């Protein structure tokens, strides 16, 4: 059983421990046309995700999350259109203890859902062992990220997300030179990692990938002792408790992460990667300049064919101003 999803708040080790194959995907922008969803006012990423799931094969299961309004409603759209099982994972926006308990309950509910579809409920030891293997893989990934060029790093993360063994062998330091910039924001679609090349071509160097598809949304490394004692709680803490994002209320954790990582990266400017109609990142972009104390490019992307040139031009203009 293949379980496709796109949110970083869905722990793949949880799915794997339940006997399924987790696959965090980056939808292809062209898939949006298959969604049959309205275009006006609709997030291109959500449309593309709907299209990907509707085109999925027999035996595939989709997991959506409530981390944004449009993806929450996309799950309902898919449920209307497709016979494939869809699970809507309720990720609370608030941080208080009751919210963490709700996230934990949702993990268990996902587990029962998978069990009903042929999966199996893991023992504590099995869950801990599977989680350790994922944690190991992420550790290798983190080690490699520091020596990979931004685009390669993003693609390696995507391979890891797809549950493929990432091509880390032979990775060598090929860090770009240029004006150091940070990119933060929403998720990338398939092939969107080329935006890092465009930034380099325009004279920039991405020193921080804080998109939803980047290292920002990796869970924190597991505490192995706690993992063995109570793997579920450790997963809750590493994912729900630690991943900073724009949908959280308040969004203090994202603000703190941004300030810390910008200072560490030495970025001289900030690029916000967001889709048109994405209110959460558009709103964050509005505050980002003041929060970061840096020049900001609010890069709204539509995912349309032909829009790439506009995106590249905007990046070029922004970097020219920074020179």
């Amino acid at each position, binding site marked *: 059983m293949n379980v496709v999803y796109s949110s970083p708040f869905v722990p793949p080790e949880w799915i794997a421990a339940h006997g399924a194959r987790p696959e965090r995907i980056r939808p292809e922008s062209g898939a949006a046309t298959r969604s049959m969803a*309205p275009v006006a*006012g609709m997030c291109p990423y959500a449309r593309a995700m709907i299209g990907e799931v509707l085109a999925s094969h027999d035996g595939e299961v989709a997991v959506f999350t409530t981390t944004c309004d449009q993806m929450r409603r996309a799950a309902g759209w898919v449920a209307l259109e497709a016979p494939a099982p869809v699970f809507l994972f309720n990720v609370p926006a608030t941080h208080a203890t*009751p919210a963490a308990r709700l996230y934990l309950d949702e993990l268990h509910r996902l587990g029962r859902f998978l069990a009903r579809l042929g999966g199996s409920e893991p023992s504590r030891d099995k869950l801990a062992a599977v989680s350790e293997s994922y944690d190991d893989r992420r550790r290798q990934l983190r080690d490699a990220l520091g020596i990979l060029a931004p685009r390669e790093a993003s693609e390696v993360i995507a391979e890891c997300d797809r549950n493929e063994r990432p091509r880390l062998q032979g990775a060598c330091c090929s860090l770009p030179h240029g004006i150091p910039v940070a990119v933060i924001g929403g998720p990338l679609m398939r092939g969107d990692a080329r935006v890092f090349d465009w930034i380099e071509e325009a004279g920039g160097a991405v020193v921080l990938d804080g998109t939803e598809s980047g290292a920002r949304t990796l869970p924190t490394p597991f505490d192995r002792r706690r993992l063995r004692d109570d793997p579920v709680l450790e997963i809750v803490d590493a994912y729900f408790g630690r991943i900073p994002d724009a949908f959280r209320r308040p969004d203090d954790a994202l603000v703190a992460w941004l300030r810390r990582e910008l200072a560490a990266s030495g970025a001289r400017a900030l690029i916000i990667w967001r889709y048109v109609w994405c*209110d959460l990142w558009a709103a964050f972009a509005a*505050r980002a300049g003041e929060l970061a104390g840096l020049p900001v490019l609010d890069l709204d992307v539509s995912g349309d064919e032909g829009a790439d040139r506009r995106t590249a031009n905007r990046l070029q203009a922004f970097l020219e101003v920074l020179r």
Partner: protein
Amino acid sequence: MNLPPERISMEELDLLCERRRASGASLPAYVGPLRRHVAEGDRRLLRLQYDASPAAMRLWSFLLTEEERLHAARAAGVKIVGTMKDLGTVPVLAYALPNVVAFYPDGAWWTPCLMELSDGLFRIAQLLGFGEAFCPVRAMLGAFVNRAHFPIPDLLTCSAGAVCDDFSAIAQCVESLGHPILWWEIPHRRPPEPDETAVELPGGFSAPASQVAFVRSELDRVRSALEVLAGAPLGASELAAGVAQANRVRRSLAELRRLAYTTEACPMPALEMLIAEMLAIHFCSDQAETIRVLADLTEEVRRRVKEKHGVLAEDAARVFWVNPVADLRVMNLLEDCGGRLAGTEFLFSHALDPIPEDLPPMEALARMALADPMVGPSTDRAARIVRDARAFRAEAVLVSRIPGASHCALEGAVIARVVREELAIPVVEMEVPPVADSMMPTLRSQLEALVETVLERRKR
């Protein structure tokens, strides 16, 4: 005074007001000519048509003097709670306390319409980065910045989780401007699974008992904050009394809606019905007066029903309206085009359904909060619309899109699909901006086409 029912201009309504006062009728102090609000900038009032009744005059005066009441409350030392997004739940808690009033800063979304954009609220929001891609509720940001409308509340609450992204993002900006918010979680309502205990919610939806318990615990956090603010306990007896009082408003509205939406000769225009329904959310900062205003309006409607006096042509197309309009004038336009309201779902059916009084109050309020049509699947909301449209014998459904609102993109399509499948009646979606003057010809064409379709279908 028995006036023939009709729709009249603001000048005519003001004349009616002056005659009432001159006749020695006892009127609440806030009732007065609407031109005083035009003088303060509410220019849209000049372009609206009103129901010709003292009850409507009182309704409008009550609505338009809310900010004055809030400022008077502040001056009198009353604690002010700004409740955001939940549309109907937290005010029930707040009004159960002495010396506390609650209002929705969200209500500022109608200010740009009323002031025909002269308020500058959108401009301030734009300067803060919230342009037209966001729902008109962004006007709230401007009101927090210029402080020219509502007083800054002593306590701000906002539901988070299964809410519109626009609102959540705008509220986050409000907090970043230095207004701390008590965020409480409202989870996405889902159907109970086979192994879960199901709880029936007001309005007919159901949810797992675990979700109700969670919301109850979140509302307990709100209750605690309110107790601290008021310096008074909010125990079960106070809450039960608060729920009973809120239900008086809801019962009154239920009767008003039943009469207005089912009587053959439409006894109350759409615009006044929209305003009346809105009172259920927050009581316009005076719960007791809300009850009296609604009683007046219901009495007027009863009289018209008894005398078979309608305000519109008897063959008006019966339209079920989904979502509130950002431009109030469009409610008049529906009637100008030959339509009438036959049911509504203005995003807050949970604020209209009676709150269970046979349950512990916090349990009842948690169930009510989870019954919010916006926190569940769009198919749930569509099912409720189907049920109500059927009950009100609607001949068409109109989904009024809110510009920029995150929920509107997919939700309208889901509602349209379900309504067509279940009721086989026409459905139209149209987007209404806060000041729709430039779009009036287009909106008129859409509405006329809808009415014509309905009238044509009657011949079959």
